[in-house]
């Protein structure tokens, strides 16, 4: 992992409530790089996030809205955030339910730019 990517992932995980950030290959759901708190299952996060993103990409495209730029799954005890980067890579964050989504989104977009 390059220092730039490492730095970008760290910037995401420094946000209060973020449990971890993963760089995922969007096509096969494999982990490219990760910065996770202990107990967060990187491979599961990667596979599930990639799969959910693909499904929503098909839906947004079918709705004429083009591919998603941000995906947010909100649950009672946490949230899953996904931002696509270049070359089919996804930036994924697992966070608390009351995360500052705006800030996380911003850092994830920066990370996506760092990967480009």
């Amino acid at each position, binding site marked *: 992992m390059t220092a730039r990517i490492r730095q970008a992932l760290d910037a995401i995980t420094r946000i209060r409530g973020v449990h971890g950030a993963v760089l995922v290959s969007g096509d096969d759901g494999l982990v490219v790089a990760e910065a996770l708190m202990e107990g*967060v*299952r990187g491979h*599961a*996060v990667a596979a*599930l*996030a990639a*799969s*959910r993103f693909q*499904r*929503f990409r*098909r*839906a*947004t495209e*079918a*709705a*004429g*809205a*083009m*591919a*998603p*730029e*941000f*995906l*947010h*799954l*909100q*649950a*009672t*005890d*946490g*949230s*899953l955030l996904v931002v696509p980067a270049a070359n089919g890579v996804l930036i994924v964050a*697992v966070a608390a*339910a009351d995360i500052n989504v705006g800030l996380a989104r911003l850092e994830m977009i920066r990370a996506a730019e760092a990967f480009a």
Partner: protein
Amino acid sequence: MPESLRALMAEVERDPGGLAFLRAVEALRARGQLDEAARVALAGLEHHPNLADAHDAWARVLVDAGDFERAWDEWGIALALDPRHGGAHKGLGFLAYRRGDFETALDHLELALAAEPTDRSVVQALKVVRAAAEAAVAPAPAVESAREHDPMPSAAVNAQAFAAPDARTPESVFAGLEGGEYGMLLFDPRGRTLAGVLRDARAGHIVSDEVAAYLAGVSQEAARTTRLLELGEWRWILAEAEGGTLHVSRPAEDALLLLARDRSVPAGRVGILAVRAADIARRWLEAQRL
């Protein structure tokens, strides 16, 4: 953009001082192109500042945008210009009803009916408001119940918006909600549409079946995701794309609700709309099961 709308817009451009803008505003509103509808309505108002219909058209756009105060003012201007303007009375009746002022709502709706005696939407609206007014003078629990089941949590002035959710047809379940005519879809976990309609954000054609099919398994997948990642129970999913925002939630165990709005609508507002739409969807689904 459909041919009819394109022709209408061309007519507006060819003759900016004409009245084609009134039909264009309605057509744009129906397609959910509020920004464009606002632009055309305001341009029309510049040419026709003393035309009640022009203020009525602008008020309708404002209601769609959720700006009820300015809509109230515009309909007030329309009535000052034409005290018998049916559309303005209907609009003010709607807004008065919405804020719980049933007496004023009835006054305006009765005047709307006097102006347009054949308008069935006004007759329907009068029925709803009279029922609400009666409930409001009934003992306290009934009043609470009537408020709880407010059939009009939001905008758009049309007949269906005055019908209680359980009396609505699948096509009109979300009538009265911002975007209810083109960007709200209820479907089951197997991808079968139940109610509402979704239109392509760019071309405007109906894509309900296609999108419902793509999102069919989303509920199980989301549940699996949150279970494996120990995130609790999933509540909603928001996808922001360049051409629009999609919001999926689960108003009932066997139904999913999709809202699609253009990117000019902030994500937080989409969430608020989703809560309102989910409430209506739940009541409609319950009525279908009886």
